[in-house]
């Protein structure tokens, strides 16, 4: 298990470094269109071939990793923080506060978010740089992703609220802040971590979906979500290399699971 964990850490480091310094692997620009060779097979010049516009897949893949690996965890962090705050408050306070927050969560989950996202996009200015569009996309995802993890956090906190160690802490004179920060948070951390690692791939895929609705990352900037969209219409039988983003996504998520000690997931 330790070997697997070490290998996973090594793999994640390689992926992160490759995303940070893509020039190590390719000298091509992710936006350059080699129109004489669209949909080219892997070659020395283009190790992962080219996309439909003749852009180097490897370059787009590496630059896309930079975007997705930086922003999807950031969005997941944002949603988990909100979930911890709101779910934690509901579980800890109980009573009408809990009922009120749960009703708000239910309401939030029942809203037609797709339509709301479309409205958000329609209201945005047209001339925004790709960087701004990326930030907006993941910010929106992060802000909308909290209700489901908030319910999980609430359940965990609710279960711990009457635990013996909290009673003892109260009896020892701990303030509510100390109870939350020192006693409760370390005990719900595994739940939050699990929610975080689940949210990362979900947000990467959500970005791909948003791209189809016009709320994704603007061309020519690549992202894993955008690369995954290519598979939808690509011919994976004759061009198996276009599946590379899926494999990498699966490998990265799998490695993240291995890197985390298993006991961290038990509450």
């Amino acid at each position, binding site marked *: 298990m330790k070997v697997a964990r070490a290998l996973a850490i090594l793999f994640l480091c390689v992926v992160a470094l490759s995303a940070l310094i893509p020039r190590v692997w390719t000298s091509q620009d992710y936006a350059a269109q080699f*129109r004489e060779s669209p949909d080219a097979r892997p070659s020395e010049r283009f190790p992962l071939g080219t996309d439909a516009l003749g852009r180097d897949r490897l370059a787009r893949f590496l630059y896309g990793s930079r975007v997705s690996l930086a922003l999807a965890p950031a969005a997941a962090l944002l949603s988990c923080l909100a979930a911890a705050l709101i779910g934690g408050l509901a579980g800890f306070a109980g009573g009408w506060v809990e009922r009120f927050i749960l009703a708000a969560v239910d309401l939030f989950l029942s809203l037609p978010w797709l339509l709301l996202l479309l409205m958000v996009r329609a209201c945005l200015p047209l001339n925004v740089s790709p960087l701004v569009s990326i930030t907006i996309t993941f910010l929106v995802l992060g802000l909308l992703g909290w209700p489901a993890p908030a319910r999980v956090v609430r359940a965990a906190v609710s279960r711990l609220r009457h635990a013996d160690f909290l009673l003892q802490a109260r009896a020892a004179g701990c303030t509510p802040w100390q109870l939350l920060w020192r006693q409760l948070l370390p005990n719900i951390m595994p739940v939050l971590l699990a929610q975080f690692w689940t949210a990362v791939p979900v947000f990467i895929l959500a970005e791909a979906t948003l791209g*189809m*609705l016009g709320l994704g990352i603007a061309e020519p900037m690549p992202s894993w979500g955008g690369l995954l969209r290519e598979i939808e219409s690509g011919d994976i039988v004759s061009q198996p290399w276009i599946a590379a983003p899926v494999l990498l996504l699966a490998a990265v998520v799998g490695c993240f699971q291995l890197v985390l000690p298993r006991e961290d997931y038990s509450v």
Partner: protein
Amino acid sequence: MSRLLSILLFAILAAANLAAAELHFALHSEPKTLDPWAVADDSSEAIRYLTEGVLIRINRLTQQPEAELAASWTVANGGRRVNFSLRKGVKFPDGSAFTSQDVVETFRKLLDPGLHSPVADTFKTEKGVVEITAKDDYTIVADFPAAPAAFERLFDQVAIVSHLAKDRPAPGLGPFIIAAREPGSYILLKRNPAYWKRKADGQPLPLLEAIRLEFQQNRDLELLRFRRGELQLIDSLTPDLYDRLSKESSGQGSVRVFDSGPTTDAEFLWFNLAPQAPLATYKKAWFQSQAFRRAISEAIERNDLIRVVYHGHASPSAGLVSPANKQWFNARLAPDRFDPVSAVKRLSEAGFMLQGNILRDSYGHPVEFSVITNAGSKTREPMAAMIQQDLAKIGIKLNLVTLDFPSLIERITRSLDYETCLLGLVNVDIDPSELMNVLLSSATNHPWNPSQKTPATAWEAEIDRLMLTQGLTDDLAIRKKNFDRVQEILHEQSPVVYLLHPNSLSAISAAVHGAKPTPFFPHTFWDADHLTVVNGK
């Protein structure tokens, strides 16, 4: 005993053949309406085409008018009156006879302003609307306020509905009738037992027992189901899927793919020239500059768009009219050649300066603008990305924004909050009069500056005059001359940068017999009453 077996075998085969006489294909969206007078989308149009009868039908292959419910017609009164002799012996599916009363009632209801029928709009002019009166049970007279050009085409869209029908859709006079409908899933059409047409040998039409139209938005899934044999034709293929299917089917007899050549459709980019648009003044000045617009047109490599995005299945565009429209295409016009050097020269003469890699206007503003297009389009998104790179070569930064369709329509028709837009136009009809709703400056669909009270520019006033003049005469030479000039003005002024005309790509299973695909909608099933399906589904 052997004779009995033969009869049994024959009966089984006949039953199998009967069961097989059902054609399956997909519509890319659910029809917005089944009311034949309210049709405004392709799927509804397909249903109308298959289920309704019209007085005159334009043959999609020859593009010539053919007598349908009107057995013949004559033109009188300087082209303002058309006398129709209706076909006798035609019956609606409920058994009632088709008479002039049905035609008169159809037009009375259709032209009711409260109905807001897009079909009715084509019969309305500044001088009034058409008047339809019955002389007897089988003769009607159509009086137009002014002699219409190519009046036959107007009647191709008008579904004749029984005057006894209490609601629409009612079983009509087309080859099929709607037998079942499952929202979100399919529409089943059964053969109309009362259909009046016969084959030359007297065999009743249609030959098919039924058509099942499945709603399938995802084109990849449509292809998958076609490969499995669940669908028997694909009326409109995207270029990538066409190429994939071509490769797969080469040497096999089970599938035929067709590139029927350029359609009358066009893909284009236009500039927002509306004075009330909420844009920066300096950007409005760029777009108002003819030199700027011409430079953009010259800086786009159309051949690359065709080769890379359309896989060669399109032709470069010189204007709104496709070369497929042989009668009205202005052959003197040629698509703008890709010439970034000439584009920069034009821009320099208009006061723009290329400083390093950035083009600036005379006030020093870097030239940066956005193009909006519909999200999820397999052709427009890559085209926009290629145009982005083309314009970068002359120092222009183009921001690509993809929007869902309702938001896009909101921007281009109501708020006018956009800079340029990349879209396409589906030209169902080839007559110039059908383009009035796009080319007249007062038209709501006039893309670059809609609903003008008076023409904003002299060249738009000239287009208005030429279009209205050609619409009021039957003299083909005058009409052609006027419309040629309209195309030339559009090319000179370039408020719209016409990019390409896509080809009509379709696929038909070998089980379907009699299909003759054309570049005109509906491409593969325009003669559905003559199609047959053999060897099972």
